């Protein structure tokens, strides 16, 4: 097992971690990733030219409505793809290495669950009912050729990290509550000490209180171990519990990538603004609004800006597809932020 040196120091101050992230580079860098599926009536452009970078120890929330391609993005990064692929291009750098060059077997051995692990949607319901939970958590290690004692030792360790009593190792999935099962799944993703954990809707099936305690556990892992997370969710309020940065997707494209402090307070892209306005809040008096219309079909997305038809700030320029403009707090795919015109502010 490769152990990265960052584990040696347990708690690192935020600023220090940031500067170190800059020096050691990013965990994940995605460049111009395309994932198109073949369908009977055309090609579905699920991920359409997405580029972003994630620093070490940082968490990135990927937000967007259902069908905007956020899960496809995760699947593309992990190369968990179905057969009907039409186009799968782009570059994915993990710790500086382009893993898109790897063959399938090399990718499986060196990347999947070794460097990136995944907590997939509703995974807590897919635990094996006839295998003890402890064994299931140790399984990725056994598959990656670790001795049985060592694997179970490590499983015990991660059980502690996610906050499950050690005695639960010998229990079966049905003996665990929903929250505990979700913790077991997260433990499974952490056993191999990956550089990046992708969480796909980790709390959407859970109760409010359970959700809060899972988020607490994830925060603790992030702070103590400096773990990098990519959190895919449509629950914007919950995503703010973990995110340092936010990537907002719309119709297969990245529309805004900015710092959490910017995104949750004052997002840049008109879609992100509307999306934030639709989030109900408990403590602040604000009547939520909805976005009229529907997202476009990914089969034949409109040319130009894909949000233009529903946008309240549309103008002539929107007939052309906007590039990703750089902003002080991030990047935004909107003509309002073209250099020189600062109306977006």
């Amino acid at each position, binding site marked *: 097992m490769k152990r990265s040196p960052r584990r040696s120091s347990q708690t690192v101050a935020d600023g220090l971690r940031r500067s170190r992230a800059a020096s050691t580079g990013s965990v994940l860098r995605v460049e111009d990733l395309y994932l198109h599926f073949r369908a009977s009536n055309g090609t579905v452009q699920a991920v359409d030219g997405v580029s972003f970078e994630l620093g070490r120890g940082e968490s990135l929330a990927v937000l967007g409505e259902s069908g905007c391609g956020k899960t496809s993005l995760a699947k593309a990064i992990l190369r968990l793809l179905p057969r009907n692929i039409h186009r799968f291009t782009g570059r994915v750098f993990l710790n500086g290495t382009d893993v898109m060059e790897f063959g399938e077997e090399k990718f499986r051995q060196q990347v999947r669950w070794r460097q990136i692990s995944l907590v997939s949607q509703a995974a807590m319901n897919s635990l094996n009912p006839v295998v003890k939970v402890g064994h299931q958590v140790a399984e990725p290690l056994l598959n990656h050729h670790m001795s049985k004692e060592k694997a179970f030792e490590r499983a015990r360790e991660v059980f502690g990290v996610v906050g499950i009593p050690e005695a639960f190792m010998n229990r079966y999935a049905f003996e665990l*509550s929903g929250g505990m099962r979700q913790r077991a799944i997260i433990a499974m993703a952490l056993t191999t000490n990956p550089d990046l954990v992708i969480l796909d809707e980790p709390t959407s099936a859970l*109760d409010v209180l359970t959700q809060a305690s899972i988020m607490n556990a994830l925060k603790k892992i992030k702070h103590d171990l400096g773990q990098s997370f990519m959190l895919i969710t449509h629950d914007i309020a919950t995503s703010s519990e973990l995110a340092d940065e936010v990537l907002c997707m719309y119709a297969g494209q990245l529309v805004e990538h900015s710092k959490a402090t910017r995104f949750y307070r004052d997002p840049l892209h008109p879609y992100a603004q509307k999306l934030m306005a639709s989030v109900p809040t408990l403590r602040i008096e604000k009547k939520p609004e909805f976005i009229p219309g529907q997202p476009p079909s990914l089969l034949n997305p409109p040319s130009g800006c894909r949000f233009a038809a529903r946008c309240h700030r549309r103008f002539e320029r929107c007939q052309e597809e906007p590039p990703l403009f750089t902003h002080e707090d991030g990047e935004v795919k909107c003509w309002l932020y073209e250099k020189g015109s600062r109306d977006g502010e």
Partner: protein
Amino acid sequence: MENNTLLSVKDLRTWFELKRWGFLSAGFVKAVDGVSFDLKKGEAVTLVGESGSGKTTLLRTVLGLVRPTGGEMLFAGRRISGDKGQSQQDLAWLRWQIGFVQQDPYGALAPFMSVKRILVEPLLVNKVKKNEREQRIREAMEEVRLLPVDDFLQKYPHMLSGGQQQRLVVARALLLHPLLIAADEPVSMLDASVRVEILQLISRIQESHDLGVLYVTHDLSSVRYFSQRAFVMYAAKLVEKADVKEIVQNPLHPYTQTLLNAIPDPDPENVSRFRDVPPGEPPSLINPPIGCRFHPRCSRMIEGLCDAEEPPEFEPSSGHFTECWLYK
């Protein structure tokens, strides 16, 4: 005052028997255990609770889908269940009066039926006259803005978006001109931007027709703007009842306080904050704890009182009820 009450529930109990051998019973799952509330005409009420708290069972009992074990239920002054049990006529009448909006719109709509067929079904079952059917369907669809109506009638559920499907479910609930809409997690399966649309729609219909609405949800923040009062349910009991504003700004019961604490608002500061979560998990409804059901997890537990005696309902301020010994 009495005739202003649409639904009145007193000490309602719904228990499910585990197993029975002759006279021997293995016990009961007390899913609803002594619940009382009133719902006024034209009022929207939210029932908040975690899964397993019995909120869905309470809703199903109100809908007449589950037979209550005890207690009394009056709907628009008519006794639906009481000492003599439920009569079939009363139940049939009750089901006319309550429109049900299910949680998962796709699961609630038969995939092999067209929109027209889906909407005509309740009218056929309830023997609405033929010449009236078409008109009722059109009215309901216009009400939920599935326009133009003729385009939608021939479509099948899979051809509709999630929001449209849920609007269809709402339209179906409106067909029989009910007095009460009961919505079980009406927006939990939908995207944030569509949620508000559906809630606004239900709220508009509620106001224009002066309907009562009973929302059952675990997400208080999304329905708080669309309802007037909220009931908080924990382990088969209503622990707090008050105006939504009161509940949000001044929660009294320790459970309500922790529940509200756990709900995040989108705020970048959340990253550096840990939330207070009470230890343990909701109790089993087969053998609930003696005394207050929240006491094993409560940080303000009074020894000798909370773990011994079940708290009755107190009213610390007018219209704000809570079952907690702290307010005796």
